[in-house]
């Protein structure tokens, strides 16, 4: 094993290879682009050294950081160490020239314990070997990475950058930090005027101001609505709408699915009652307003349920019925 390791030493690059163990279920969806890059790079890797131990495709694919390691254009990258071998002792022997490697245990019951041991031990060794040029050591172990073991072990193995800790806590924290930064980026797009601001504190401040201003606007608009529209609703209309509009208030969760179908019947009710209404007692919004309302919804991407209603608009509002102010 050490001999094979020294073989691979010729092709070292100056990276410390650390494998981060992350729980699989917490992988955020937005990592897919990174995962795809990983996959491409992994395919390239496979072409380079097919004879070496078989990599677990899923392991490589889900690694977070390794792509940045390879983007420096060092093509003769030796096979990077994949997590967990059963030969923990070998790694201990090759302490001087080894990079901390995670080796996947052949037997999955032992894997977790071995990994934790590996991690701790390798962290120390890594700090020792940091003065040397860290070279990538060909993993001399003959452990084969069984694809079927991976789902059992339930790990995601990612590569961390040089100079970063291998501790499982810090690795999990790093993943968490990345998720937070993704969310912040999304919020940055959402809040207008936030793209110029860099830095978490400024952005958070901007977001808080925006939310406060939106809430103030809601209050102001509700006051305006109350002032502009004195209550002049017709009894018929109120009776018709009571049964329907009370539903969303009372049991939104149980009837959520049924409510998707109800609006059609609600509109039918509106249509039926409109003929009975006296013009000055109606409270329908004018056609143009409804169109603009649907436009608002469409723009904001929630108007999918409103599509079937467009056909109603022509019948819904007779011309003599408008919103009475």
């Amino acid at each position: 094993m050490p001999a094979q390791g020294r073989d691979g030493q010729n092709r070292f690059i100056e990276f410390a290879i650390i494998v981060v163990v992350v729980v699989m279920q917490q992988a955020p969806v937005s990592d897919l682009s990174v995962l795809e890059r990983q996959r491409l790079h992994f395919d390239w890797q496979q072409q380079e050294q097919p004879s070496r131990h078989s990599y677990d495709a899923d392991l490589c694919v889900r690694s977070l950081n390794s792509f940045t390691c390879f983007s420096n254009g060092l093509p003769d990258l030796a096979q990077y160490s994949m997590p967990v071998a059963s030969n923990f002792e070998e790694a201990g022997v090759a302490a001087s020239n080894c990079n901390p490697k995670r080796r996947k245990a052949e037997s999955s019951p032992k894997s977790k314990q071995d990994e934790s041991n590996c991690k701790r031990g390798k962290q120390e060794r890594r700090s020792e070997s940091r003065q040397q040029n860290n070279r990538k050591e060909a993993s001399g172990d003959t452990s084969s990475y069984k694809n079927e073991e991976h789902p059992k072990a339930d790990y995601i193995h990612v590569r961390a950058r040089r100079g970063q800790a291998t501790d499982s806590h810090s690795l999990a924290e790093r993943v968490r930090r990345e998720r937070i930064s993704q969310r912040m980026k999304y919020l940055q797009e959402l809040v207008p005027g936030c793209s110029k601001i860099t830095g978490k504190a400024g952005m958070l401040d901007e977001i808080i101001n925006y939310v406060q201003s939106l809430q103030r606007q809601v209050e102001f608009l509700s006051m305006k609505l109350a002032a502009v529209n004195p209550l002049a609703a017709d009894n018929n209309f109120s009776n018709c709408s009571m049964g329907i509009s009370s539903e969303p208030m009372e049991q939104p969760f149980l009837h959520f699915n049924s409510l998707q179908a109800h609006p059609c019947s609600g509109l039918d009710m509106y249509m039926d009652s409109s003929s009975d209404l006296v013009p000055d007692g109606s409270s329908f919004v004018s056609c143009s307003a409804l169109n603009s309302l649907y436009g608002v919804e469409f723009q904001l991407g929630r108007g999918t349920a409103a599509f079937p209603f467009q056909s109603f608009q022509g019948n819904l509002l007779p011309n003599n019925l408008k919103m009475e102010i």
Partner: protein
Amino acid sequence: MVALRFLRALSLVRCSGPGARSPSYRARGIRRAAYACMAASAGPRRAWSRALLRKIRRRPGRGLRRPRAVIRRRRPVGGGDPLEVALRRLVPGGGCMEYCRLLEEAADYVKCLAMQVRLMQTIVDSASHVNSID
């Protein structure tokens, strides 16, 4: 979806007390209806919508409390960051979430709030437009 719900709720608010209520009372009712519609259309999938609906439906003076099936997690959050604390206060249901989740919910809340504001603005505009015609 929100538009329809909100219009219905508006009419409901208007029906509840034609002339007897002060405008401020009506304004409060409209505001509550706005938030309720927003939360109802967002769906039960979002934590903020659930918390908002819970807050709205829990009226003062309602003594009877149904036993909750879901135990709300009251994790004491070490709020060292004043910005984070402020965000938690703003987003409904933000007291018990992790930071990552809080940002997610805040994004969705902002989106829904913006839509609601635009909706109400459109209604007010159309109302004043109709008003100005007469």
